[in-house]
């Protein structure tokens, strides 16, 4: 700190008093952007005040570093910047565009990763099914005890699902599905190893349980149970697997970007897939708890519903490609 009295710098109080009114006006205008009540003149005023505040901030940073005035200006300018440069969310076309084009395009752009996820799940299912088919005793280690006990008693373990309030049950199932699906996605951060393992493990369980039920004469009720929600649920898991492998690809093969940056970019793409998976899982959870258990709905109806649900989602995902081919 200089002791030369003449060089202590400009007076910060005078600076703030001179400009404060316009900063506060800027703050008020920026706060009203969200409500959409600004007149054209006020929008122009906002823009002008914002530019001046940005200049004031540069001055404050040089002349009064670390002061409350600088902190306040930084916050107000950032607020106005956010209001002026926000991507308009109210534009009705944006949401429609996101649903109608962005999600399917992301799916198609990374189709091989979807295939990879399907391969791991299918390999697990084949392994589980073959193991129990050739050696029924393998069920002891591959099929959960609760399921084995129920099957040994000649009943489906899912019958008990109807015993509690379906609404509550549905939400619990959705929670569980989302947790598993989220894990399949997030384990992409292990370079895809965790995602591949989880897909394989789930396939293993599914294959083993299916064959075990068939061997004990419960094949019909089992397939009747999974027919309605199974296809869509598997689709959810595979899409989450695709998203997980997308994350993994950023770590394994980031291309021209640094890994952190690649992770953010592909993370955003993966999020588009999740934006489809999460609501779809909610639907699956409702079907699984309300329609799948018991014999309220006949088997063929469930199978038809399940096929329809999965087909509709697949059709939605490949539609842009079909349309592009038709246009070509």
């Amino acid at each position, binding site marked *: 700190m200089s002791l030369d009295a003449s060089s*202590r710098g400009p007076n*910060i*109080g005078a600076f703030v008093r001179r400009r404060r009114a316009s900063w506060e006006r800027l703050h008020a205008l920026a706060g009203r952007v969200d409500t959409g009540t600004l007149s054209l003149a006020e929008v122009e005023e906002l823009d002008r005040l914002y530019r001046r505040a940005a200049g004031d901030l540069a001055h404050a940073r040089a002349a009064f570093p*670390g002061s409350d005035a600088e902190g*306040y200006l930084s916050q107000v300018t950032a607020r106005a910047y*956010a209001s002026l440069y926000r991507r308009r*969310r109210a534009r009705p076309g944006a949401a429609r565009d996101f649903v109608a084009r962005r999600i399917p395009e992301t799916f198609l752009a990374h189709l091989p990763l979807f295939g990879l996820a399907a391969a791991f799940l299918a390999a697990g299912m084949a392994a589980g099914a073959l193991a129990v088919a050739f050696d029924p005793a393998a069920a002891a280690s591959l099929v959960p005890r609760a399921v084995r006990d129920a099957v040994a008693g000649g009943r489906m373990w899912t019958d008990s699902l109807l015993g509690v309030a379906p609404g509550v049950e549905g939400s619990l199932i959705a929670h569980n599905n989302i947790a598993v699906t989220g894990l399949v*996605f997030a384990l992409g951060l292990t370079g895809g190893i965790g995602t591949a393992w989880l897909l394989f493990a789930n396939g293993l369980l599914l294959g083993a349980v299916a064959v075990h039920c068939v061997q004990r004469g419960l094949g019909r009720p089992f397939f009747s149970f999974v027919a309605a929600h199974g296809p869509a649920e598997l689709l959810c898991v595979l899409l989450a697997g695709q998203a997980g492998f997308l994350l993994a690809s950023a770590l394994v093969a980031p291309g021209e970007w640094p890994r952190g940056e690649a992770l953010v970019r592909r993370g955003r793409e993966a999020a588009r897939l999740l934006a489809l998976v999460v609501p779809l899982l909610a639907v699956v959870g409702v079907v699984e708890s309300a329609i799948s258990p018991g014999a309220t709905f006949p088997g063929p109806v469930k199978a038809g519903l399940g096929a329809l649900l999965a087909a509709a989602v697949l059709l939605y995902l490949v539609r842009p490609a079909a349309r592009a081919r038709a246009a070509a």
Partner: protein
Amino acid sequence: MSTGPQLTFETPERAVLSLDVAGLGGRALAYLSDLALIFLFWVTALLLYSFGGDLLRRVQELSAVAQVVAAAAFFCTGWTWDVLWETLWRGQTPGKRLAGIRVVRTDGAPVGFVESVVRNVSRAVELPLLYAPGVLAVALTRRHQRLGDVLAGTLVVKDRAYDLSRYAAPGALDPRWSALRGRAGAALAPADFERLSDFLRRRPALAPAARARLASKIASALAARAGAGDVSQADAEPFLEALAAAYASEGAP
């Protein structure tokens, strides 16, 4: 301003903005507040609902559509509370507002729907592990980002309440130090005035002994510089008030 990590970004106008990054404490407070709010909501809802009699039977008696709606509502409060608030309320949930923090993108723009979904869905990994990965990630990363923040390209910044009234021109000056008028600006650098007004604002919260000691220390240092001669310990605070007032009344109106 704090000396902790900052988010610094440049606007298209070449203005460099920097915001203070929020730490573990604020984020935990926000999370717990939101949790309490959701809990309170459900307790109230279930309480009101249970006035109608046997809760479970009534749920079972609902039509299929109503059951779906009930399930969806339950589902929504748990998983989409954060997404909806963050998207529609400029990156704040009620808990975050309480804690004075806000979610922004790493380029300073407000958080969008997609980013909010990513950062919140990834809680699926952290919740089963009692948030340990999240706490570790916030503690260890340079900009205090949770796992979901890294994936979504977002971070949480502090929303501070600045009070500009400290710069306001005061009324009368204590006549004993009227000589300070016109000389305070030469005695104080802007940073000195900041520290001085910090002290004047915070002194009610200080212990009396510490407050008197601090006041006389600052006063004796600044009195010499302002050429005001010796200031007794009892006069320390009135002197500092006068000095700050004299400084703030110089220059433009």
